[in-house]
C-alpha cells in the first residue's frame, strides 16, 4: 500500500489514497495523529505542495511483514535530498494506520529557500502540524538485571530468521548499549548510513562512532526503548525512541526523541541504514532544538 503514497507524490493521485483510508484510519505526521477526511485532505494537499519543490521521488528501501509495510522515500532536487519513512498497516486494500517520519529540517531549509526570493533557511514550515500534547514522566533509566527491558527477540515476529535476529540484536547493542567496538563488526566502509540528510563516514561529516558518542554525550540519562521491528529476509524497520535529559537555555528538560531507522543487510553486515528524525516536531514539542 506504499504505492498509494507513491502515486500521491508522483501522480498527484489523491483518490487512490482516499479510497484506501477507512473512517477510523489514523495518520501520523509531525508527531500528531490525524483522523477523518478533513484532516486527511489537508495532509494530502501539503504533500502535493511539498512535491512541487522536488524533481524526483524514489522508494529507496522497503520492508513488508504480514499486514505491515514500510519504506524510505527519497525526495530529490538538484541541490538537496530529503528522506522520509512511511509505514502502513493495511489489509484487503484498506489502510488502518499510516505513520510518517520526515526529515523536516531538511525539508524546511529547501522549502523556504525555494519559496522566498531572498534566502530564508528558517527551521519552520507554515503547515507542519502541532505535535500531540505529551506529558513525560521520570523513570529509572538503568538497565537493572532483574527488570525487563525490550530486546530485539521480544519484538520481532516469531518467524524472523535467527540470522536476522542476531544481526539486529548486535545493532541494538551498539545503539542502546553504547557499544562503540561493535560498530566495526556491523558496518563496512561501503555502508551507506545517513541521519536525516547527513551521510555519515563521509568527508566533513561525523563517523558512525562519533554519531553514537554524540547521542550518548548530549542526551543524559538516556533510555532507549524499542517500539516495533518489522523484518523480512534482508530489511528491517526499527521504530524506537530515546527518553533523556537535555541541557537547554532554560535548564535540564526531559525529552523524547522518536526514531525510525530502516536497515538493509547482507551477509551479516549492514549495507544501508537510514535514520529519520523529525526535528521540527521535536522543537515544537520541547521548545528546544535537537542538540546535534
Amino acid at each position, binding site marked *: 500500500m506504499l504505492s498509494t503514497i507513491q502515486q500521491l507524490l508522483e501522480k498527484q493521485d489523491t483518490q487512490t489514497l482516499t479510497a484506501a483510508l*477507512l*473512517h*477510523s484510519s*489514523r495518520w501520523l505526521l509531525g508527531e500528531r*495523529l490525524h*483522523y*477523518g477526511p*478533513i*484532516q486527511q485532505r489537508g495532509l494530502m494537499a501539503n504533500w502535493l505542495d511539498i512535491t512541487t519543490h522536488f524533481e524526483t521521488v524514489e522508494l529507496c528501501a522497503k520492508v513488508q511483514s504480514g499486514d505491515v509495510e514500510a519504506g524510505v522515500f527519497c525526495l530529490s532536487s538538484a541541490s538537496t535530498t530529503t528522506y522520509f519513512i512511511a509505514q502502513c498497516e493495511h*489489509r*484487503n486494500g*484498506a489502510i*488502518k494506520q499510516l505513520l510518517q517520519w520526515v526529515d523536516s529540517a531538511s525539508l524546511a531549509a529547501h522549502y523556504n529557500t525555494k519559496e522566498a526570493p531572498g534566502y530564508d533557511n528558517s527551521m519552520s514550515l507554515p503547515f507542519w502540524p*502541532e505535535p*500531540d*500534547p*505529551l*506529558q513525560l*514522566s*521520570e*523513570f*529509572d*533509566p538503568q538497565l537493572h538485571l*532483574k*527488570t*525487563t*527491558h*525490550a*530486546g530485539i527477540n*521480544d*519484538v520481532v515476529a516469531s518467524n524472523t530468521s535467527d540470522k536476522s535476529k542476531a544481526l539486529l540484536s548486535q545493532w541494538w547493542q551498539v545503539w542502546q548499549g553504547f557499544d562503540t567496538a561493535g560498530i566495526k563488526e556491523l558496518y563496512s566502509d561501503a555502508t551507506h548510513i545517513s541521519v536525516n540528510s547527513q551521510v555519515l563516514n563521509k568527508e566533513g561529516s561525523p563517523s558512525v562512532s562519533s554519531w553514537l558518542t554524540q547521542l550518548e554525550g548530549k542526551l543524559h540519562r538516556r*533510555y532507549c*526503548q*524499542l*517500539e*516495533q521491528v518489522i523484518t523480512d529476509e534482508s530489511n528491517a524497520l526499527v521504530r524506537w*525512541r530515546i*527518553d533523556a535529559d537535555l541541557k537547554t537555555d532554560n535548564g535540564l528538560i526531559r525529552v523524547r526523541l522518536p526514531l525510525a531507522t530502516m536497515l538493509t543487510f547482507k551477509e551479516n553486515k549492514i549495507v544501508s541504514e537510514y535514520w529519520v528524525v523529525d526535528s521540527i516536531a521535536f522543537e515544537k514539542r520541547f521548545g528546544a532544538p535537537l542538540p546535534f
Partner: protein
Amino acid sequence: MSETSIAKTVYWQPLHDMLDPARSKTQTLAGFDEEFVDLADYILRITHRIWEQKNIGACYDYYADYCPVHTLGGYADSVDVVVQNTLKTIAAFPDRSLIGEDVIYREEANDVYYSSHRITSIMTNKGPSEFGAPTGKTGRVTTIADCMCRDNKIFYEWLMRDNSFLIAQLGIELDDAAAFQAKFPVSSTFTQWLNEEYARTCANEASRWEALPEQDKPWGDFAKSWADQIFNKRMFNKLSDFYKPNASVQWPGGRQATGNAAIGGMFIKYLASCPDANMVVDHICVTHYDDNRVNIALRWGLAGHYNATQSKYAQFNQQPHYILGATHFEIEDGVIAKEFTVFDEVAALANLMRKLPQATEA
C-alpha cells in the same frame, strides 16, 4: 476464534459497511430492532445517527426515558437532558466526529447487553463549551462510553472523556477549565453518588456485576490482578507479568509510555498525586479478536487522598479524591500490548475545588 470475529470486522470496517453491515446476524438481540446484526453494530450505528448525522432526537429512540448517566463532572437521568447535552456539545463543537475504535461487549442476564465503546473524536471549538469561551481550535479526544442496553435502548451509562488532553490542544489551562466548571452547581444526586462511590472504593468494595462466562474468567482475574498488584500493592516489578516489553500505554492528558520502565514511571508519578489510592474494578467485558488477541474493557474507580505534585495545587492536599475511569486492553500472547485509559482530569480538579467528595471517613 474465526478469522472474521466481530471485533476484527469492526477494526477494519469501512464506513459504508458500518452503515450497512454485510455480516450476518450472530446475536439474538431480543427486543432490538431487526436491522441490528450484533451489539457492536447497534452501538456504532446509533452513535453515527445521533452525532454525525445530527439526528439528536434519535436519543428518544435509543435512550430509555429514565437513564442514569454518570460522569465525573455531573449526573443526568432523563432522556431530555441527554438530548439537551448532546445539542449543547454539537453547538460548541459543530464538526465533532465520533470514530469508533472498538466496541467491547457482553451479553448479561435478562436480555441486557453491556457495551464499552472507545471513540476518537476530532472537534473544532466554535461555541461556548463546558471549558469556557470558544477558542476556534481543533482537538482530538478519546472517550469511553459504557452503556447497559435492553430492548433497543440504553438504560444506564457511564461516560469517561480525556478532557485534559483535549483542552491542551485548545490552548486552555487545566486550572482555568476546572475553575470554570467548578462555578456551576452540581445536583444533590451527583454529590450523593460521588460520596458513595468514594466510600465504596476506599472500602475496596466492587460493585456487583455478573460473573464472566467460563472461557473469559481468566481474563477477569488478570484484570483484577492488574489493579491489585500495580495500583493497590504498588508492585512495579510485576509490570512484566502484565505488559509486553514494548507495550504502549495511553493515559489522560497526553501521558504516553512504552515499555515497562516508562510505564512504571508514569504510574508512580500518577499515584504520587493520590498515594493512598485504592482501585476497584467495577465491570469487565471481554471480546475475542483472533486466536492470539483478546480485547478487555474495565470500568474502575480510584479513591484516596489528594497530594499535590505541583505547588499550585497544594491547597487541595489531603482532600478526598475520586476518579471514575475506564481502560481498554489489547492482549497479545497473554499480556497487554496496548492500553487506553480514560478519565476526566478537568472534572477531577473541579471536584477538588468544590471540596467533593464530602467523605465520611471510616
